[in-house]
């Protein structure tokens, strides 16, 4: 950082530059985090009556099977996304970096389209794809003569989580594709040329050059994938609202239902704190595992 007195503004101007962001951020992020912790110690339905109950909300939360079931649902989405999004994006990026695929720009542009769409639109669109009678998926199965595969995709509690996870995985493949392509393009092509002189073929180049050089990018991608999917909400809210029963309820949906449908704002706050702790913990765990595998 350079320190130049010539361009340094006066004290008041300096504070006008700095403070609007800091105040707004404190008011919208820092204060709410503290408020969530405070409300979590109360039994409170939103009115003027607030009963301090200490850690009781957390005691309930620890054994609340609905909450832990929702957490497992989030974990399932995270797991499928790490495998599906990052795996598929990585494979496609290798294809797109090779010389044999035509129309690379077209593929890249098209695969990124779902990323920019509102998850609410995606949710409704896939809701229609899954529709029993007028759905594209069952139409496709019927056309292919696979009538026995036709299922009530969003109404069967045993498969609904997989049904709602598929659009989430599908939507963000393009996002990780662009990240991987950017990282691969920054690898010096001389490394590949030298490897080719030494007789390395496509798969060997991928395994021994691309993969190791991309390890830090892959770690960032995994972290983003975890952070992004712990807050999965919009498209599932639209497709099933967490149902049937609570079979597709994720943590954010459970916090929403508890606070705004059952009006248990104290307990809802405890759930929010739980979501924040579990998300940060999961990211730290993934960093620790990732850090170890490097050595």
């Amino acid at each position: 950082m350079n320190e130049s007195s010539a361009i340094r503004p006066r004290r008041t101007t300096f504070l006008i530059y700095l403070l609007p962001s800091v105040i707004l951020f404190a008011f919208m992020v820092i204060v709410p985090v503290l408020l969530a912790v405070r409300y979590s110690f109360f039994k409170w339905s939103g009115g003027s009556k607030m009963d301090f109950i200490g850690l009781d909300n957390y005691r309930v939360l620890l054994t609340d099977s609905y909450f832990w079931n929702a957490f497992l649902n989030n974990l399932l989405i995270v797991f499928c996304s790490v495998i599906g999004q990052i795996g598929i994006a990585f494979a496609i990026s290798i294809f797109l970096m090779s010389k044999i695929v035509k129309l690379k720009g077209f593929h890249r542009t098209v695969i990124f389209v779902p990323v920019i769409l509102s998850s609410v639109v995606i949710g409704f669109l896939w809701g229609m794809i899954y529709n029993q009678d007028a759905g594209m998926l069952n139409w496709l199965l019927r056309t292919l003569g696979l009538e026995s595969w036709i299922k009530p995709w969003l109404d069967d509690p045993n498969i609904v989580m997989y049904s709602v996870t598929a659009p989430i995985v599908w939507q963000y493949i393009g996002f990780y594709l662009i990240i991987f392509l950017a990282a691969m393009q920054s690898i010096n092509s001389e490394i590949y040329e030298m490897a080719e002189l030494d007789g390395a073929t496509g798969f060997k180049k991928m395994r021994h050059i691309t993969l190791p050089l991309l390890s830090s990018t892959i770690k960032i991608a995994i972290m983003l994938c975890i952070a992004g999917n712990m807050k999965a909400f919009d498209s599932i809210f639209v497709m099933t609202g967490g149902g049937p029963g609570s079979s597709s309820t994720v943590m954010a949906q459970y916090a929403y239902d508890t606070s705004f449908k059952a009006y248990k704002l104290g307990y809802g706050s405890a759930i929010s704190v739980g979501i924040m702790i579990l998300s940060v913990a999961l990211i730290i765990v993934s960093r620790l595992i990732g850090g170890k595998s490097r050595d």
Partner: protein
Amino acid sequence: MTNAVKKIGVVGINVIMFIVSLSCIFPLIWMLYSSLKTEQEFNLNIMSLPSKPQFQNYIDAFEIGKMGTYFWNSAFVSLLTVVFTILFGFFTAYVIARFKFPFRNAIYFMFLAGMLIPIHGLLIPIFVEFKTLALLDQPYTLVFPYVAFHLSMAIFLFENFIKSVPLDVEEAACIDGSSPTNTVLRIVFPLCLPVISTAIILFFLGAWNEFPFALVLIKSANLQTLPIGLTNFNGQYTSNYTQMLAAMAIVALPVVIVYLIFAKRVMQGMTAGAVKG
């Protein structure tokens, strides 16, 4: 490998790539052409192209479904979000990039940590906070959280970029008598236009598509944004698929058009945090 086998491999991979691309774009194309069909035509065959394209579904979506109101609300909130995020973020990033001052590192770290905080955990406390301060259900309500949530990314992108801008020009301008604010606006800001245009697209998309905070903080139908309007629409007209498809197209089309014009910048913007980090 013989030539024939190699050729089959090449064709195979190209075919796979086309299937992948098609699966990404087809649902959107299906949505667009189906929204031009009548309800009866849609019920007869869900996959067929419209025999006589008609825009009645769009007219209904605007007239019955109030999509016009939601559209302007979304445009208003997105515009204010972009303007204030860029304005606040740019000046803060500038002082962080250029000067030493007390708590500089703490402030920078606070903003960066903001990128990792799961904002869905803030839904309930922000609702309570806004209720206490009577900020719920105002035309500008959503601008507060949207600007705050995008500030981290704005400051991160701008700080990085400003550091790469040489200092000499600013110093020369100041020695010639230009005031600091004048220098920042006239010299540093224009130099940062590449990263600012990336940021504009990123924040516009973020605000346009945001759902959970709009769901919780706005109750009156006159102030709701498009994603919420879409869920209302679905509740009232569940059985009318083609109208619903037209309403979805109204939400998606502005974003798709922006994307088709600025594809490279949009891709850069959406992945900026990850590629630089």
